[in-house]
């Protein structure tokens, strides 16, 4: 199909419908409203589909939980403060091994913060976010095309591993317009998951729950979740590299920050500085092995984020002391420019005696 010009938020909506998303439950919050509105227009009247503007983010995520119980592909979206409210439900989804896609078009925090794009929810997204011992897969797109592609992938991953998948974007990605191509057509019908609750017809009744009065039982649930997380780490960790072959300094950045960094790196390269970039695409699982591989030849790393340095510790953990990590960040919804980042890169490059 030909490319069309769309906002990131709308592109997620279209991609979700083409991934077979049957139920969307949302609640207004800037900067993700275009997605909720897109689903109201394009999903709500589709056969076998349902759209609800819920009374709260908490209600929306619990509707997702309900829809996922029946085996439907389902999604919700919000932005930072709303994602905090959804954490209760995300914990239940993770606990009950229910697939769902949750989009966070993050904004500046903490508190009510700002409506401007920021990456301040990295910790919340990559550490589980809600109560209890669990993980979610976290995908970090950096273009409208990737928002569309990753949305489709998110539904596939959620179903494959029976896990909630977070798409961690930001207000800029959600609201900017870019050409996008949709590579999938909506499926006629999806197979129904074997664990789906659809009434005890022709089979014994089923229970989906985690609560138990026996700690050993819950311990086994935790172990079984973590065995699956190990599998996800092995099979689904993804990242992108840019000009790392001869690099002496590597910028580590994700999402929209990686796009800004790329511009900065191109300028630095034109000035003769050997700079490359590692862009984690899955924030959890984090591409630690790639970092370790790069660390064999590169010792200087600059983590660049639109927050106060939440990814720094993941890079440090991956390096295990086998490289030096610097950080540059702009929190609060301030959008840094490529030339600003180029200055930071150049200063660091000379300070560390790389030239």
């Amino acid at each position, binding site marked *: 199909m030909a490319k069309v010009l769309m906002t990131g938020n709308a592109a997620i909506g279209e991609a979700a419908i083409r991934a077979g998303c049957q139920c969307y439950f949302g609640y207004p919050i800037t900067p993700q409203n275009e997605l909720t509105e897109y689903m109201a227009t394009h999903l709500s009247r589709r056969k076998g589909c349902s759209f*609800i503007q819920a009374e709260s983010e908490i209600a929306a995520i619990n509707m997702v939980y309900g829809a996922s*119980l029946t085996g439907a592909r389902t999604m919700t979206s919000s932005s930072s403060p709303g994602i905090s409210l959804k954490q209760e439900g995300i914990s239940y989804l993770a606990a009950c091994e229910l697939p769902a896609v949750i989009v966070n078009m993050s904004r500046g925090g903490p508190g009510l913060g700002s409506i401007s794009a920021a990456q301040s929810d990295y910790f919340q997204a990559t550490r589980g976010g809600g109560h209890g011992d669990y993980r979610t897969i976290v995908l970090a797109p950096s273009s409208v095309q990737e928002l569309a592609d990753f949305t489709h992938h998110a539904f596939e991953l959620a179903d494959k591993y029976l896990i909630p998948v977070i798409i961690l974007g930001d207000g800029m990605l959600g609201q900017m317009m870019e050409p996008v191509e949709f590579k999938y057509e909506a499926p006629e019908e999806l197979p129904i998951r074997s664990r789906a609750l659809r009434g*005890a017809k022709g089979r014994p009744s089923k229970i989906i*729950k985690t609560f138990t009065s026996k700690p050993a039982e819950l311990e086994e649930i935790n172990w079984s979740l973590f065995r699956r997380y190990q599998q996800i780490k092995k099979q689904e960790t993804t990242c992108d590299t840019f000009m790392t072959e001869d690099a002496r300094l590597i910028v580590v950045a994700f999402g929209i920050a990686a796009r800004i960094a790329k511009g900065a790196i191109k300028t630095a390269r034109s000035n003769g500085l050997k700079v490359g970039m590692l862009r984690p695409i899955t924030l959890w699982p984090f591409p630690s092995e790639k970092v370790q591989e790069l660390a064999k030849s590169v010792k200087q790393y600059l983590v660049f984020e639109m927050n106060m340095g939440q990814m720094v510790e993941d890079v440090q953990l991956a390096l295990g002391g086998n490289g030096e990590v610097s950080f540059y960040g702009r929190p609060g919804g301030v959008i840094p420019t490529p030339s600003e980042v180029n200055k930071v890169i150049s200063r660091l490059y000379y300070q560390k005696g790389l030239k």
Partner: protein
Amino acid sequence: MEKIYTRPKSLKKAAFHYCPGCGHSIVHRIICEVIDELNLQERVIGIPPPGCSVFAYHYFDVDMAESAHGRGAAVATGIKRAYPEAIVFTYQGDGDLAAIGTAETIHAANRGERITAIFINNAVYGMTGGQMAPTTLLEQKTTTTPYGRDIKLEGYPIKISEMLALTKGAVYIERTAANSPANIRKTKKAIRKAFQTQIDDLGFSLVEILSPCPTNWRMTPIEAWQWIDKVMTKEYPLGIIKDITGKQDAD
């Protein structure tokens, strides 16, 4: 000899864990009787809450899924919207439905979700040890109102069923009690009507059941049954609160 009383098909063969005199086991049983009589065992999905009845899924032989505290109506909404063939009921206590889940309950009712709420009002938080519930009566002593509920400090017992009746999406709401054979029969009739309302695709239905909690009320089971009649029903009168199942064209 004619068999006149038997275990409902949709009630599992398991001994109830509830305290002596507790209303849950009675209500579980009559819900199962209704499920059998309406031939719904293969279609029902039940949503038990956190609380004493979290283990309801050990007794109901139908598909069930646990809900977070207060979120039953939202979870049921998600199920029903995704799979409208299901007959979905929530089983919720007063803290669950009328405190932490107030928003979910009111908005599900207002949207006219085709779900049925079985609302157990025992005027306390049972499983956590008898704290004040939104439905706790004035001057009633609980572990968090040790001097009795004082309107100046704790406000009034909330009449959530009457509030829900104001929503246009709620079509059938009745308050009953599980404290005598006659009232238990009326409760069963109300539950049957509530499920029928959902089967007929009319809107939101709810049965509030005043239910004894002798343990947390510090009473014997008989005293608890009597307290419902003498005290609780004065604040929460029994009967149909709203029934527009016969006049859906009214609006």
